[in-house]
């Protein structure tokens, strides 16, 4: 999938990321799907909480019930809003399809040339746009790092978790050839964290099950 970069016309120095139409459509569909699933989960959650509140004393359940009912209503209104906007969009698309006029080829060519130019300028500025698959991969890696770090933190405390974060993110999201740099940063941050939290501020840090630190 090709992604493009577009420069802000008013300020050529300002690089703003834009995606191709295909990517945009894919992302819109993805967001829409996420939104619908999220709303359904919220609906289930609020209904469940209202159900759970039924055994509470009158004063304790009154407010959750009122709030739950109002929120369920909001979610239903939100679904209706989505339905209306979707129908409006389809109607508009129908109007567009019925008009066979395509943009003149010279305009398309000009636009393509301009986008190519812009892409080159943005690349010069060091900006990199990632494909949606790569973005998803990076996100999944981040989630895995965070989840693994919770286990490491539970066992080895901050002493292992802090360098783990820097090394894992550095190697997976940075450049592998700079691994030494990430290790040094991780160890330095661990030392600074220990000194600033424990010695300077007297704030206890996560010890972990394996050892105890003073």
């Amino acid at each position, binding site marked *: 999938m090709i992604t493009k970069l577009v420069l802000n016309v008013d300020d050529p120095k*300002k690089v703003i990321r834009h995606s191709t139409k295909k990517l945009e459509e894919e992302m819109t569909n993805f967001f829409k799907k996420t939104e619908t699933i999220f709303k359904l989960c919220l609906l289930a959650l609020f209904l469940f909480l209202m159900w759970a509140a039924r055994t*509470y004393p009158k004063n*304790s359940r009154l407010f959750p019930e009122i*709030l739950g009912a109002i929120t369920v209503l909001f979610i239903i*209104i939100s679904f209706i809003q989505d339905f209306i906007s979707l129908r409006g969009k389809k109607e508009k698309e129908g109007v567009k399809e019925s008009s066979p006029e395509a943009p003149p080829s010279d305009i398309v060519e000009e636009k393509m040339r301009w986008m190519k130019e812009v892409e080159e300028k943005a690349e010069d500025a060091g900006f990199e746009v990632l494909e949606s698959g790569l973005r998803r991969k*990076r996100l999944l890696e*981040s989630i895995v790092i965070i989840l693994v770090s919770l286990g490491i933190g539970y066992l080895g405390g*901050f002493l292992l978790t802090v360098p783990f974060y820097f090394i894992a993110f550095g190697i997976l999201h940075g450049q592998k050839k700079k691994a030494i740099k990430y290790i040094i940063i991780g160890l330095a941050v661990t030392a600074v964290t220990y000194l600033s939290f424990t010695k300077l501020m007297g*704030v206890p840090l996560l010890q972990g099950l394996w050892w105890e630190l003073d």
Partner: protein
Amino acid sequence: MDIYYILSLVLTWQNLLALVIGGFAGLVVGILPGIGPSAGMALSFPIVMSMNPLTGLIFMGTMYRVSNYGGSITAIMLNTPGDASNAATILDGFPMCENGQSNVALGISATGAVVGGIFGLIILIFFSPLLAEFALRFGPAEYLLVAVFALSIISAVIKGATIKGLISASLGLMFAMVGYDVIAGHLRFTFGMDFLEDGVPFIQALVGFFAISQALALSETTLSISKVGKLAGSFWTGLITYFKHPMVVLRSTVLGLWFGVLPAVGQSTAGLVAYADALKCSKHPETFGKGEPVGVIASETATNSCMPGDLVCTIALGIPGSVGAAVFLSIMIAFGIIPGPLVFTEKADVIYGLFFALILTQIFIFIIGFTLARYLARISLIPNEIIVPAVIVVSLLGSYAIRNMILDVFLSVAFGFLGFIMKKAGFNPIPLILGLVLGEMVERNFHRALMITGGSYAIFYHSIVCKILIVLTILSLIGPFLTPMYRRATQLVRRG
């Protein structure tokens, strides 16, 4: 009140040293997400108790005050507010940072802190006893409606998705109901998890919704927070921009003062309402949320002018407007200064001495902003593979440090994932946070109001203040729908 006598009390080397050390400590705890003013003050408590009351309160007051500015720095640079009071700064502060204008945003923030704070303090020095007396006339119904108004207005201003904002706020209110019921003391929605008995921990939720979810969002991209890859503008540009909007400054100061004087409403509400006000009065509302300096001006000015009012409520009524103010209240009591309207006469030297010291703190904030802003702004250029783990580490360590419970870390991570999903689904977590903050106040005042009337709901529209607040709430909710209709109608009229 003898000003010269008060000044002679404040301007001793011990007090000035306490001010500087407290200021730097406040900056550190403000910058570290999750530590915040409350934890910072609680940690300094044993040190401060050996000082005399005025010096101790100056140390704590300065720490509390400067930590708010520190929180603005992280809100602008990392999309992570140090405290709930910085929530409104995120809305345009972070987009400014993404646009490479972090220096300008930090300049605005420092100027807003100084102007809002000085205005607020001067007015409150002279009018605090009067304002405290007026605020006492607010009953539970009025407080409930102020909170509902705050929730509705913030839901209405976020990206025009009013219903989604309201759903988000409702979720926050529902989270606030976890734990012991404020009226009956019945345990709710804990599902056997003991660590939730005291409710959903606020700082841990804040860390999750802002820091962790932001770290996840950053990890998806390369380069750095600044998408432009370089910094534009300077601290002075921010200062000049700030003074180019005197009406926004004036309105936000008044709003901040008003919300500060209302007990238990707090700085977060003031900042968000001032932001909404700036958006509604703007000729270019479409630029808000995309790095509009006016948004930062409004939120920073209101938050900072609110803080003195917040302290007045804490001092005069013993009702704190925020968690930080609650800690400050307990420190005052530990020093033998019992809050109440009489404190302004019985302990006038300490209270007014503290107010004057806080004016000096504003100058300290400006110096910090002026000297350190350019260095702090460079945070936005650090590569994501370094800044992401740094944000996560500091946030989770802060989350753990509050109660020394690993479950709090898990909770922050869970909230982080939830915040990330919410953003992907087009839901802004800011109304949720405000709902979480105001939830207890809303429910308590709801029950109190019903107790007063024996269960009659008429109390919620009985007084003139209630009626005004109901009208404002309705207007804030239907406003986003009416504005485009009004524009379309005017366009049609123009076309004939």
